[in-house]
């Protein structure tokens, strides 16, 4: 059953990639955890696959993965649906849940600092290991138990973030403040952060079409971690990571992203290697509208 569940987004992704011709060159940021203030172009669908390989002390290493379907509803509103899964080596493969995220841009114009409001609902099991964000007192030992034990825990979380992002002289600086509430009773509000900086390797575009031109590569670094919860706010019993990141925006409409994350304290996984691939489909909303007899 888990394999069949994970096949659904994979098959959907492959079909769309091959049969949809309206693909668009994206200019994606290299961040995997941090968000900048740029939203999906309206009517476009971006399909993404991400993978996280993590080392685990006191347990087995794991490979967690997720598929993202990111749709630009409006120029000021992006909605995203995630499907998560993981394989713990020497243990099992599991479907670990889904997330529905919305990002809303309150201001009409660009400013020195641009805020975006982020609201997400998560329905995941305790076996979810994608580490898309780190919050509260999330520590490495939380992930050491076998999948059969972890999957029994269910998280229904409301996660909010304030995303602040600036672009200056080709650099992007982003800061995310995370506030999460597990909707199950007796769980406190949890806090976390993610910050990032990135810059394209070339600021001017080449007058020739090319795959390896510097402007196609965006390099940066991100740092993320937990800040405790309402009852014990602070850095104790929290985990933190720093990760150099790189995005390669290919002229063939694909974007590849790489990130090598290193744990900064004893509560963190020592190493998280992440990679992702994405493709943007232009006019998806219009295309679906036509399928259902909408505007011709």
């Amino acid at each position: 059953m888990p394999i069949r569940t994970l096949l659904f987004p994979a098959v959907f992704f492959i079909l769309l990639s091959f049969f949809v011709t309206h693909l668009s060159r994206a200019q994606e940021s290299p961040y995997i955890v941090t968000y900048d203030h740029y939203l999906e172009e309206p009517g476009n669908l971006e399909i993404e696959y991400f993978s996280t390989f993590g080392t685990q002390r006191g347990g087995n290493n794991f490979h967690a993965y997720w598929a993202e379907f990111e749709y630009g509803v409006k120029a000021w509103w992006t909605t995203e649906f995630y499907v998560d899964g993981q394989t713990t080596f020497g243990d099992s493969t599991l479907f670990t849940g889904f997330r529905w995220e919305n990002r809303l841009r309150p201001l009409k114009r660009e400013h020195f600092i641009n805020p975006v409001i982020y609201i997400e609902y998560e329905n995941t099991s305790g076996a979810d290991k994608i580490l898309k964000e780190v919050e509260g007192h999330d520590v490495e030992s939380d992930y050491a138990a076998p999948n059969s034990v972890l999957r029994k825990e269910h998280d229904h979380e409301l996660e909010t973030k304030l995303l602040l992002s600036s672009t200056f002289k080709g650099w992007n600086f982003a800061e995310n403040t995370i506030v999460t509430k597990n909707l199950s009773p007796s769980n406190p509000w949890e806090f976390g952060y993610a910050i990032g900086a990135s810059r394209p390797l070339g600021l001017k575009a080449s007058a020739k079409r090319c795959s390896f031109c510097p402007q196609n590569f965006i390099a940066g670094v991100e740092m993320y971690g937990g800040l405790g919860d309402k009852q014990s706010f602070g850095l104790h019993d929290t985990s933190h990571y720093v990760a150099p990141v790189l995005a390669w925006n290919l002229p063939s409409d694909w974007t590849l992203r790489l990130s090598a994350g290193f744990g900064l304290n004893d509560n963190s996984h020592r190493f998280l290697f992440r990679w992702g691939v994405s493709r943007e489909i232009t006019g998806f909303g219009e295309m679906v509208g036509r399928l259902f007899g909408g505007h011709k």
Partner: protein
Amino acid sequence: MKTFATAISVSACLLALSVALAKPRESGKQSSGATHNFDPAVYAELQKAPGKARAKQNPLANDPEAAVAGGILFEQHCADCHGEKAGGAKRGPSLRVEQVQNAEPGAIFWLLTNGVVRKGMPVWSKLPEPQRWQLVSFIKSLSASAAKTETEQADPETALAAQSKPQ
């Protein structure tokens, strides 16, 4: 199985929501007359550029490759909405019209940077400044007369009817 069913249900709901929201936006931008003609008021956004932004000069104005590079950028990021030849499409107005061609380069740069978020145009500040100026160079290289020729080529019957219409 329950989780799988939930995932499918949520996907279907999102899809339905997307379709519902996408349709009014498309139909709202259609206008009478020639294909993909937009309300001229759409170009009024250019007039909202502050004086300081308008006064900015294109630092790549004398770069012979700027318009060529801008053309590639346009194809990659803008053509889906504004049409392959910038003559307008369902989602974005023509950039060959005189309102755009007569606008100051600084005003076009300002619009690219800020978008018209409430009317569907995203901000393009994610492109570095030199690339936005390359786009401005490309847009300014399109002449209004080329647009006229293109319209005649695209729809010769309309052009012929317009010519034979008594003045």
